[in-house]
């Protein structure tokens, strides 16, 4: 099989792993080997240093962040008087990042669970039921995968405006449910199509209704795909700025990305606060990254074409 349109969710391959064929071949430390190591090390440092610098800065005092480079701490890293949580304190309580963090959770959890439910039913029908229009509808879903979300914004803002929904959580939940749907259907249907058909057929022969087969057979068997999509959608919604800007805006209901972006805009030279703010906004995605790396990678690679 060629590579799927978005990467398929493979059974049990660890995308971050290396070849699993026995012990690694013995390697001589040739000049080439040293070069390879140096190159990889160099690239890794290049990738890590910007984030690391910000992390270091977030624990430094205001004056220090504004006047000296973060790398100067390594002159005396054990001088504990230079480390402080003041930026975090200020960001969480004075800049509203604590409240925004809560809002992000409130936005993200329903916006993840509800589309999965709806998409799972649809994916089941697309996979195991025959009906006129099936192919065409699914082709439309595939086409919609790459459509930029911007297509929906102008009319939706007008419609939500008529019902006074702009700025409410309900508006973002609905919007994300709609925007996440094509991808959810696509991922789940592709996975379900790889399930052994005989099991579903024998369930039908035994007299199980579609409804029962769905709940007691197909949903449990599809857990890898459900989890992959859940992680993708969770991160996508958590990290989203545009949908939040348009439907939620700034204020009491603002999410972490908006809070951070406003800090960048408003504070101008309040550098020290940006550092802590950025890390608070990143902590959940990074935790997911480190704790569930395998699922995380699968989710992201499966869902990366989202429009």
């Amino acid at each position, binding site marked *: 099989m060629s590579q799927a*349109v978005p990467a398929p969710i493979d059974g049990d391959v660890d995308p971050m792993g290396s070849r699993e064929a026995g012990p690694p071949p013995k390697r001589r430390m040739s000049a080439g080997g040293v070069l390879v190591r140096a190159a990889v090390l160099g690239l890794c440092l290049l990738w890590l240093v910007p984030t690391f610098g910000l992390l270091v800065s977030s624990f430094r005092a205001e004056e220090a962040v504004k006047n000296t480079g973060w790398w100067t701490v390594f002159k005396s890293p054990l001088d504990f008087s230079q480390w402080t949580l003041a930026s975090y304190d200020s960001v969480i309580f004075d800049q509203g990042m604590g409240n925004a963090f809560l809002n992000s959770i409130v936005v993200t959890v329903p916006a993840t669970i509800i589309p999965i439910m709806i998409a799972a039913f649809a994916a089941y029908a697309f996979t195991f039921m025959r009906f006129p229009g099936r192919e065409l509808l699914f082709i439309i879903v595939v086409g919609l995968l790459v459509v930029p979300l911007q*297509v929906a914004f102008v009319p939706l803002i007008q419609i939500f405006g008529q019902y006074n929904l702009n700025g409410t959580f309900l508006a973002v939940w609905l919007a994300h449910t709609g925007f996440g749907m094509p991808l959810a*259907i696509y991922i789940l249907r592709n996975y379900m199509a790889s399930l052994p058909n005989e099991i579903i057929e024998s369930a039908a022969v035994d007299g199980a209704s579609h409804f029962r087969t769905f709940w007691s057979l197909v949903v449990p068997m599809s857990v890898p795909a459900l989890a992959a999509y859940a992680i993708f959608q969770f991160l996508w919604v958590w990290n989203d700025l545009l949908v939040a800007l348009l439907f939620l805006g700034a204020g009491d209901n603002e999410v972490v990305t908006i809070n951070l972006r406003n800090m960048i805009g408003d504070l101008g030279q309040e550098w020290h606060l940006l550092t802590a703010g950025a890390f608070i906004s990143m902590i959940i995605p990074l935790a997911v990254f480190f704790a569930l790396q395998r699922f995380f990678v699968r989710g992201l690679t499966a869902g990366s074409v989202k429009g």
Partner: protein
Amino acid sequence: MIKILNAVVAILAGVGGMVALYWVLNAVVERLPSRWEHRVKPYIFIGPAIAVVGLFLVYPAVQTIIFSFADKNSEAWVGLDNYRVLFEDEGFRSALVNNLLWILVVPAASVVIGLLIAVLADRLRPTAEKVAKSVIFMPMAISFVGASTIWIFVYATRFAQGDQQIGLLSAITTKLGFDPVAWLSIERWNFNDFLLMVIMIWLQAGFAMVLLSAAVKGVPDDTIEAARIDGASELQIFFKVVVPQIWPTVIVVFTTVLILVMKVFDIVYVMTNGRNETDVVANTFFKELIEFGDDGRAAAVVVVLMVAVIPVMIYQVRRFRMQEAGR
């Protein structure tokens, strides 16, 4: 507290409501004569999904096309005026050019860097490989706003005499004897655009690496061995044996990053908001819609974006059909 309660209610009502809806509809359909039951039931299963997609994507898309021919409040027809104004606008044309530049640079750069790391890391010991890949992949967890904040600190510059540099890039260049420069204001050769692209490449290389690494590992060893026996050099093996076999994956990665880059918004919005000739199409959309409140022109920008996406869409559908045929 009320918010959390709200969310809990939303989850329960949303999920519970959906389950109840499906259950009730299902129960109703099961009372139908069996011939009808089989005909109607699939639509019960896909109905809500189709309704949601129709309401939040298809209907608004059609509506957007219609609005693009109307005035700022969508009240009167203006024909092609919105498009004419857009394409006569220097700023929008420059945004189009910048987007094109992003499209030319970022997908290719992500693929090349991702492939480089995938191939190099493949030669390390398993633990080292895993760590290296995690480091490169980690930025994928970070939001565009978060990434922008990180890079604001890299690109920061201080100009006053005697001030120390607090941004890494300026610290290095001034150490090397150059004068401090405001990096994101350098318009010559679109240098500031490239600095913004660096952020996107930094974010996407890990994604490219993960997919390409899996593809590289999937290349059968005997094809490589055969080439080696024939006396091919490592470089020849890579370009003549490995690359052709992983080409489908290269295309997938390229397309994915391409789609992402076509509608790049957050990075530009946060870093420069289009100042110093860095604007892109998605950011002009946001400006028209929110800052100028011109729904007609905003819709026209979206239509331009839609038209640009159509070739990718056709390609995706074709690809999907081929895949289905091979299932």
